């Protein structure tokens, strides 16, 4: 395994605000990473920094071992699809797909055509007149068909319906299987992509909260449900991430449980349910609750 992206102590300030705050991580080759966080958490800025579109205030970025800024050798191997991508005023989708192969050496025209049909994208309508979902479809198609060794998707499917999103997930996995590459995907629809992700980065207020294997992360928290008494006695001495209750019932989210813990909980008549990635991120970034940072 080797690192395609290496970031160390990366900081980006805009005047008073720190959009990216002393972030360090690396991304291994041919994995699908999720970059999760709330609006304004710094996801887009981070991706703009990684793709040489923005400039770091401090810190180091290496993409394929080199600085990305103004480095055409590196950038040729990078594709960055962002939700807010602007297109020339007079462009139609067909202009985008005609010109894409000039910029992406691995462009697969057959795949692009198949995706255009899948998404039912009209090729000859002015881009300005497309719906939000159709606009997103253009980005998704470019991102998949470019087959760039390092592909960034920043909120790629705003306005895409459930069917179209499923097509995106299916095609991504399918094509990823045949043509392995490194994908970094930022999204709000965490549960939808949770099975796709091999590694998860959670960013909040510019800081990296989680840099964790997705499998490990999924088991890192469990919700214990039962009578208030039973639950209370079970969670004594454990780190409690979240607690809610109605009447005599309680539901408490705790950190990682050992098999012995699980057996004991079952004996006590308590119900255990895994915490989804989405809930985990919500718990983590929704309040001042940062206990999970240590336990995860």
């Amino acid at each position: 395994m080797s690192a395609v992206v290496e970031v160390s102590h990366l900081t980006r300030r805009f005047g008073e605000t720190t959009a990216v705050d002393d972030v360090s991580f690396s991304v291994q080759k041919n994995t699908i990473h999720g970059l999760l966080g709330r609006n304004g958490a710094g996801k887009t800025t981070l991706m703009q920094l990684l793709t040489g579109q923005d400039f770091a205030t401090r810190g180091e970025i290496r993409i394929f071992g080199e600085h990305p800024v103004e480095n055409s050798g590196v950038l040729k191997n990078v594709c960055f699809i962002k939700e807010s991508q602007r297109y020339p005023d007079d462009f139609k989708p067909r202009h985008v797909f005609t010109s894409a192969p000039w910029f992406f050496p691995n462009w697969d025209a057959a795949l692009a055509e198949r995706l255009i049909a899948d998404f039912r994208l009209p090729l000859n309508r002015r881009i300005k007149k497309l719906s939000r979902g159709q606009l997103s479809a253009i980005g998704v198609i470019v991102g998949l068909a470019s087959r760039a060794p390092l592909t960034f998707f920043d909120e790629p499917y705003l306005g895409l319906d459930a069917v179209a999103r499923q097509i995106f997930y299916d095609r991504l996995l399918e094509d990823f299987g045949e043509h392995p590459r490194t994908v970094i995907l930022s999204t709000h629809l965490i549960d939808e992509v949770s099975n796709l992700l091999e590694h998860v980065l959670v960013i909040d207020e510019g800081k990296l909260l989680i840099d964790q294997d997705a499998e490990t992360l999924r088991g890192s928290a469990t919700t214990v449900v039962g009578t208030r008494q039973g639950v209370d006695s079970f969670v004594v001495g454990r780190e409690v991430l979240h607690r809610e209750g109605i009447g005599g019932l309680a539901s408490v989210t705790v950190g990682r449980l050992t098999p012995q813990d699980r057996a004991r909980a079952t004996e006590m008549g308590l119900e255990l349910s895994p915490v989804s990635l989405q809930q985990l991120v919500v718990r983590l970034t929704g309040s001042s609750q940062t206990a999970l940072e240590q336990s995860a």
Partner: protein
Amino acid sequence: MSTLTQPTIDEARIDRPGGASNILAVVRLHLVNRYSVFAVPWMIMGGIFVVNVAIWWIIFSSISSEADRADARDGLEFSGALFYIFVYMLVLGIQAVAFTFPFALGFSVTRRDFWLGSALTFIGLSAVYSAGLTVLAAIEVATDGWGLGGSMFATFYFGGADASWIERFGLYFAAYLFFYFVGAAIATIYQRWRNNGMLVLFGTLALLLVAGIALASFTSSWPSVWAWFGSNGPSGVIAWSLVPTAIAAITGYFILRRATPKN
């Protein structure tokens, strides 16, 4: 900072095409929508031409004396009809940076390759359009003003009816370049500093203008200013425009080097 490891990636998967192919790709990107690059300008020109022909026809059918006709012909030599086509090029220059630049960056183009490719496109398009105008000017002169005594291409500003085709071509070419590069350079200021950049730019230009007027007035040097314009003539002024064009081309590059497209 030394936690970074040496590059160990599989180099075989990293494509390293030369810079020239990237620059050519940008040129092709600018030209991919042939309709707006080639058809629309000539359509605008055609529209202006039709209107002008109508005006010439009205003028010359309403006056009968030979002296008045000669007068009208002299006046028509100052036609500014072509100005519109140059304004359209200014808009194309602005759009190249305002829209195509964020798009090209999304296609993983470096700012350097974008600017060089854009400059090459501007030069190429200026040459093509100038050649077209030169041909039209030659036809205009040969047909004695499209058979009506009118004047739209071989005007006073571009050397008049007696200019050689090379002179005309050079003047058209310089004028096109000026509008392309100045438009693009203004747009780079917007890309880099947004509204504040625009305010500072136009504020500075206004100040410079006022300062220039004040300077000329207080030093009583208006006569020599007019003398300069007089001795250079419109053609000379257009030739001198190559200086601001070059400044725009160079500053635009350095401004864009640190610009980030915003949403």
